[in-house]
C-alpha cells in the first residue's frame, strides 16, 4: 500500500462519494431489517421465558463482542481485558441505578462514559504493545480489576461509595426502565440498545476513524509515515470499545438485577476473545455470531443436558478450526460454504476459490 493509499484510507485525501447501493447491499439491508423485526416483534411471543432471558444476554453480549471486534479486527489490538471493562460498566450502572432515580437511558450513557474514561486510562500503558504482550498485559489488568471487584463488591443497595452492605439479608433488585420491567419488554429494550450501539460502531467504521484503523491494522509504520496520528486513533478505538462495553455492562445490571463479583471470572475474558475469533473479528455480523456462541450455545447445551464444562473444549476446538481454515471466522466462512453448497446443489461449475480474510 502506498502513502497515498494510506492517506485516502484515513480520509485525509479528497472526499469520496459513497457508491450507490448495489443489489447485494439492498438484499443485505433487507435481510437485516427483516431479522431485526423478527427479533423485536415475532420472537418474544413465541419464546419461552428461558430463551427470552438467553436472547437478552445475546443482545447484551453482542455489544461486548462488537467492542472487542473493533479492537481485534479493526485495529489489531488483542485485548483480554474486555470482561474487566464490562465489569466496570456493570458496577457503575448498578451504583447509579441504586443511588439515583435518573432515567435508565441516561444511566446507560453515564456508565458508558465512565467506563470509556477508566477503560481507556487503564489500557493506556498497553498502547505501546501488540500481539501476545498486549494480550498478557490486558489479562493482568482484568485480573487486577477482578481482585478490586472482589474486595469492594458490587452495589447491593448499601450506602457509601461502594454501595455494598455485606450484612444485608434481603438484597434489593437493580431497577429496570419503567417501560421494560417484564423480561420480554427488557429483551426488546436490550435489542434496541444493541441496534443503536451497532449503528454507532458502523458509523465509525464507515468514516475517518474506520479508515484510519484499517490503515493502522495493515501497517502501523506505513500509517505513521502517511501522517496518521496512530496513538490518537488507537485511543479512539479503545474509547469506543470501552464506551459500548460500558453501556452493555449497565444493560447487564438491569437484566440480572443482582450482580456478584464471582459472575465475572478472568476465564470469561479468554472465552470472549475465543468466540470473537470464532465468530469473525473483521465483521459486524461476526459480533452477533460471537454473542450467540457465548450466550446462546451454553443455554442450548444446558437444555440438552450437556455439561457447560464442555464449552471450554468446544471453544478451544473452534479457535483451532478458525486458525486452520477460516481466519475471518464463521461470519466469513458460512456464506462461502452456503454458496459452495448451492453451487453443488444446482450443479454449477465451481469458480476458483475466492480469497478469504479480512473484509
Amino acid at each position, binding site marked *: 500500500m502506498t502513502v497515498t493509499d494510506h492517506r485516502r484510507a484515513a480520509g485525509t485525501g479528497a472526499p469520496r462519494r459513497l457508491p450507490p447501493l448495489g443489489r447485494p447491499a439492498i438484499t443485505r439491508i433487507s435481510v437485516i431489517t427483516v431479522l431485526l423485526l423478527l427479533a423485536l416483534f415475532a420472537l418474544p411471543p413465541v419464546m419461552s421465558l428461558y430463551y427470552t432471558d438467553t436472547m437478552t444476554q445475546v443482545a447484551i453480549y453482542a455489544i461486548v463482542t462488537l467492542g472487542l471486534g473493533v479492537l481485534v479486527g479493526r485495529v489489531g489490538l488483542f485485548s483480554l481485558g474486555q470482561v474487566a471493562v464490562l465489569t466496570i460498566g456493570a458496577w457503575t450502572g448498578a451504583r447509579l441505578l441504586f443511588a439515583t432515580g435518573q432515567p435508565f437511558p441516561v444511566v446507560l450513557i453515564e456508565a458508558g462514559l465512565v467506563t470509556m474514561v477508566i477503560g481507556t486510562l487503564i489500557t493506556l500503558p498497553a498502547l505501546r504493545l501488540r500481539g501476545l504482550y498486549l494480550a498478557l498485559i490486558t489479562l493482568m489488568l482484568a485480573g487486577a480489576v477482578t481482585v478490586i471487584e472482589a474486595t469492594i463488591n458490587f452495589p447491593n443497595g448499601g450506602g457509601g461509595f461502594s454501595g455494598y452492605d455485606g450484612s444485608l439479608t434481603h438484597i434489593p433488585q437493580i431497577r429496570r426502565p419503567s417501560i421494560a420491567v417484564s423480561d420480554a419488554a427488557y429483551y426488546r429494550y436490550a435489542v434496541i440498545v444493541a441496534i443503536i450501539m451497532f449503528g454507532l460502531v458502523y458509523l465509525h467504521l464507515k468514516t475517518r476513524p474506520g479508515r484510519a484503523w484499517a490503515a493502522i491494522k495493515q501497517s502501523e509504520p506505513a500509517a505513521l509515515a502517511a501522517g496518521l496520528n496512530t496513538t490518537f486513533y488507537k485511543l479512539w478505538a479503545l474509547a469506543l470499545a470501552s464506551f459500548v462495553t460500558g453501556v452493555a455492562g449497565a444493560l447487564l445490571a438491569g437484566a440480572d438485577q443482582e450482580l456478584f463479583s464471582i459472575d465475572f471470572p478472568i476465564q470469561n475474558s479468554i472465552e470472549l476473545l475465543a468466540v470473537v475469533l470464532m465468530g469473525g473479528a473483521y465483521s459486524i455480523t461476526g459480533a452477533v455470531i460471537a454473542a450467540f456462541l457465548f450466550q446462546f450455545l451454553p443455554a442450548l447445551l444446558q*437444555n440438552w443436558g450437556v455439561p457447560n464444562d464442555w464449552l471450554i473444549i468446544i471453544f478451544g476446538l473452534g479457535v483451532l478450526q478458525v486458525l486452520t481454515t477460516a481466519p475471518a471466522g464463521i461470519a466469513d466462512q458460512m456464506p462461502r460454504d452456503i454458496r459452495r453448497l448451492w453451487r453443488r446443489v444446482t450443479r454449477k461449475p465451481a469458480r476458483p476459490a475466492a480469497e478469504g480474510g479480512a473484509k
Partner: protein
Amino acid sequence: MNRREQRRSSRAGVAGAAVAVLVAVSAAAGCSSLNSGSGGKAASAPTASTPTVSTSKCGTKPGVKATGSPIVLGGITTKEPGTDFSDIGTTAAAYFDCVNDNGGINGHPVKYYPETEQTNPSQIASLAHQLVSTDHAVGIVGSSSIIECSVDNSYWKKEGFYVLGAGIDPECWSTPNTISVNMGPRYSSDGAVAHALNSHVSKIAFDQSNVPGTTYIAGGPNALAKAKHVPIQDFTENVPLTSANSVAIKLANAAGPSGAVVLNFTPPEALLILQAAQKLGLEDKVKEWGCSTPCNTDFLAKALGPKWNGKFFVNAELTPLNGDTSQTAGLYQAILAKYGKNVTGGVGSFSQMGFTDAEIATHALETVKGAYTVKSVNAAFKNIKNYVSGMQCQAFTYGNYSEHIPNNMDYTVTPDNGKMVLTQGCTAIPSVDPQIAAYRKLAGTAPQASSSGSGS
C-alpha cells in the same frame, strides 16, 4: 506489501493470537481442574457398613412401579470447577427414582429435573423460568447454589413456591418461602466458634473466603464471642489463596497461644491453610483450630494426618455417618448404592442434604389430597411440621414464618487417623446469635433434640 503478503501477515497475527488464546484456554482449564481437586466437596466420608435397609422402604408399595401422572419437581445446584453442589440434586433424583420404583407418591411417579448453574445470575433466573414455564414444575426441591436464593427468591415468591433446599447465601434463611435442611455458613461457623468458646479460649481469629455475604456470616460468630466477652478478629481472603503460609501465620499470631482459629472455607482452601500451618509448625501455637461444616470430610482428615487429632474441631450440620447404624443411614446408603450412579461424590454431606430434602418432600407430597398443583404441593411443603429425619438433630418444621432456620442444632467432629469422628453430640447453636434468637422466637420452640432414625 501485496495482497497475499497482507493476508499472510493477517493470518500470522490471528494465528499468534489464537495460539495465545488456546494456551490460555488450556491454562484456564488446567487451573479449573486443579481447583476441582477434591472438588470443594465434603463428599468422601464412606462408611464401612453394608446397607442393611432395603430400598423398598422408600415407598408405600414395595416393588410396584408408579404409573400415574407425574409430579414434576426441579432443583438448581451450582456445578462449576472448584464448586460442585450437584450431588444434592442427583441424590434427590436417586431418592425419587427409588420412590417411583416402590409405588410412587399416592401412585404418581416423581419427574425430577436437577438443573445445574455456574454462578451466573441470568442463567439461574432462566433456569427457574424454564422449570416453571416449560417443565411445569410444581415444586422446587434440592436447590443449593451460591447465589440462587438471592437471584430467584422474588420469582419463587411471585409464583407461589415454597422452596425446600440446602442454602448458602443469606436469603436462604431470611425469607418466608425458602427453607434449608442444612445450617449454612453463618450458623455452621456459629457452631465452630461456640465449640472454641466452650474450650475457654482467650481470643478467636475468624477467617473466611471473600464471597458475597461475609459481613452477614461474621455477624453470628461475633455475637457469640461478644456474649462471652472473648475478643474476635475477622479476616477475609480472596480465593483461590495465593499465599496460604502468610494466612496461616497471620491467623496464628492473631489468635495467640490460648486462642482459637476458626475457618470458613471450602475443603481445598481450608486444607491449604491447615497444611501451611502444619508445615510451619503452627498447629500447637494456638489452643484450638476450628472449621465450619465443609471441612467435615474424611478427605481432609486423611490429608492432615494424626497431628491434628483432637486439635481440629469441625462443625457437622447433619448426622455424622461414621458408625451411624440407624434406619435412615441404611436407607440413604442403599439408595446411593442402587440409584446413585450420578452421585459423583458418593456418601457425604452433600448427598445427605439431597437425601434429606427428597425425604421431607416425599413425606409432604404424600399428604396432598387431589391434584398435584403448584398450590397444593407448596401448601403441603409449608405445612410440614415436626418431621423427624434421622439426618438432623431436631424435628423439621417449615411453617408460616418470615425466616427459616429449622436446623439450628449441630454436632462436632474431629479427625481421628484419617476419619472424622463424632466428638460432641447434638448441641444447640446459642441464641445469642440474633438471627437464631429471632427464628426461635418466631417458631415458638426451644430446640429439642430428637432421637435419630425414624425416617419416613
